[in-house]
């Protein structure tokens, strides 16, 4: 297999120009992993609101309420001065100021109005829990009082405490898989499209250029090696190079995010990226049959990789791109690769119905691969004939 071996040697020789892309890729991947891994919500915990609790009366029920409230919120002690309270709100020391007016307890128990004064920071989700607490406690108090008219406030308070002491268990209904949605893996595999394209086009085209040099081609025609044999050896070397590049790049993903290996999504990410690798490898082969000089290769390489990656949503998610751009992008395999990736990332169930859209995108990528190979073969034949 002399041709195969020499082809590998040439790959090794060109390694430096290719590794630049890998280094850049890794640097960016590291950045993404550093920022994204930390904010992956896997457990549910109620975020505690910070509340200023101002009570103008200290009835047993108000005291009980304060205790109850302190279980689910952080009560910040503040003096009852409107200026101080405003400042606290402004600087987000608290997001909720709750004032119990004088005669509030009496009004509630007697079935009157339940009028609390509250000042809040708008749009703070945690405040809803405070409102919930208020409603729950005082409505229950009114309910008990109505059912048991003779009950003392102390008795009422202890009953309420017993009733409300339990916590409601909240179960997150997500499986392991959903972790990957908007996750590091998705970013990684999307961005992989850029690096893989650059590495393969640079690597394969430059090596194939060497064998396409007229003098060397003529020299090979003189040898007893069949032309088909030479082509097969070159093809094998290219596939090995593509496979190795893929393995190295994917390997880094596992290093940076070891947990991702166990998910089902990863399996499909891998399949998708492998198909993409094959597609770009055949494109690289095609490029080398068309282009004449190495400078042209690196120019075309940059144009193709950067261009397609931009319009296909590698750098900017597809949902932010305008529909005309996406229409144009759909004529590139990168678009379908990114689309499949995004779809895979959202998968939580792996039944046929859920998988079908992703598989459809992959199928289109396969069609591209076939087309590239066919065109390359036709051009190759024609070149041979005109020689």
């Amino acid at each position: 297999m002399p041709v195969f071996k020499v082809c590998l040697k040439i790959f090794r020789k060109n390694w430096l120009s290719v590794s630049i892309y890998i280094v850049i890729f890794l640097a960016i991947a590291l950045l993404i992993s550093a920022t994204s891994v930390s904010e992956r919500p896997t457990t549910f915990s109620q975020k505690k609101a910070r509340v200023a609790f101002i009570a103008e009366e200290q009835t047993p029920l108000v005291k009980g309420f304060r205790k109850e409230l302190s279980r689910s919120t952080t009560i910040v002690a503040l003096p009852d001065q409107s200026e101080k309270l405003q400042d606290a709100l402004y600087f987000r020391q608290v997001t909720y100021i709750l004032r119990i007016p004088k005669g509030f307890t009496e009004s509630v128990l007697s079935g009157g109005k339940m009028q609390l004064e509250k000042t809040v920071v708008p749009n703070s989700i945690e405040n809803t829990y405070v409102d919930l607490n208020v409603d729950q406690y005082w409505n229950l108090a009114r309910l008990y009082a109505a059912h048991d008219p003779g009950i003392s406030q102390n008795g009422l308070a202890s009953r309420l405490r017993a009733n409300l002491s339990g916590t409601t268990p909240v179960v997150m209904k997500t499986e392991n898989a959903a972790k990957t949605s908007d996750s590091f893996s998705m970013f990684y595999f999307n961005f992989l499209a850029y690096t893989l394209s650059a590495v393969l086009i640079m690597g394969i085209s430059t090596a194939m250029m060497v064998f396409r040099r007229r003098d060397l081609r003529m020299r090979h025609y003189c040898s007893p090696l069949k032309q088909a044999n030479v082509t097969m050896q070159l093809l094998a070397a290219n596939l090995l190079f593509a496979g190795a590049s893929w393995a190295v790049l994917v390997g880094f993903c596992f290093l940076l995010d070891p947990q991702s290996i166990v998910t089902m999504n990863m399996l499909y990410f891998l399949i998708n990226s492998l198909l993409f690798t094959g597609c770009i490898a055949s494109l690289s082969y095609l490029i080398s049959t068309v282009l004449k000089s190495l400078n042209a290769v690196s120019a075309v390489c940059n144009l193709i990789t950067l261009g397609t990656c931009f319009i296909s949503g590698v750098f900017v998610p597809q949902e932010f791109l305008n529909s005309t751009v996406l229409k144009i992008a759909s004529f590139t395999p990168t678009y379908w690769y990114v689309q499949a990736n995004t779809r895979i990332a959202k998968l939580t169930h792996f039944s046929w119905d859920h998988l079908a859209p992703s598989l459809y995108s992959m199928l289109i990528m396969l069609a591209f691969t076939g087309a590239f190979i066919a065109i390359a073969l036709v051009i190759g034949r024609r070149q041979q004939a005109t020689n």
Partner: protein
Amino acid sequence: MIHVKNLLKRYGDLVALDHLSLDIKEGEIFGLLGPNGSGKSTAINCILSLLSFDKGEIEIFGKKMTPDAYESKRNIGIVMQNVAVFDELTVYENIDYFCGLYVHDKSERKRLVEEAIDFVELGNFKKFHPKKLSGGLLRRLNIACGIAHRPKLIILDEPTVAVDPQSRNKILEGIARLNKQGATIVYTSHYMEEVEQLCSRIAILDKGRVIASGTQEELKAMITLGEKITIEAFSINEQELQQLRELPGVLSVQWIEKRLVIKSGKKAGSLEAVLDFLKTHEIGFGRIYSELPTLNDVFLEITGKQLRD
């Protein structure tokens, strides 16, 4: 060993090979001599089935030559006019690669590669990359890559372009040695000295046609020129020059930079007649050189132009 009959090759309107016929026998060193653009490389490429041609027959080793005559190709060594080596490989790796296209056995190949390196004397440059070699060394590498597998038939297309005279002689000696060891050689060149020194039979090519072929003696016998005499003379007038031209056996006389250049026919005796003439007319002369005709003279006489213009 190679049999070419009525080969016609056109590039559009240009007729590159005009009914070319060659017959190259086993064991000889066959020279294909011709000026630039005469069609030497085209002929070689057609013979090797690298180029398609319009008409004609080509046989090598008694078999019709086709693009997939792999058995024949196995026994042919080719040194192309354009250096065909991998810039990415070292000298050793290059020779090993091209040898490996023919010879699969590793230890056998190692021996052959070492022999080829000795042959072109690149022992000190084994680890060099082609880009680091001078033009002459690169040519030698090109030769080594073509002959390492010890083929029965070696075709060399102007292998010594840009090689200094010393290395050129080494290469020519080497080729003669390969021939002694049993290889048939086809050698193209536009240097007549090389061809004259090396080849046992020669075909002279011009505008795609063989204008003459045979051994050197046969070629030189074809022309009227027998001897070229150069005499350093001090002065001579136009009348005396005219009288010299009329001497028997003298074909032409030129007076260039105090030298008389006299071309004479095949019959002996012209030199004596000339010297007698100079003495009787008391024309002083110095050194005398006599040259036998070269292939350039053959080419000149047949085509009316210099081989190297």
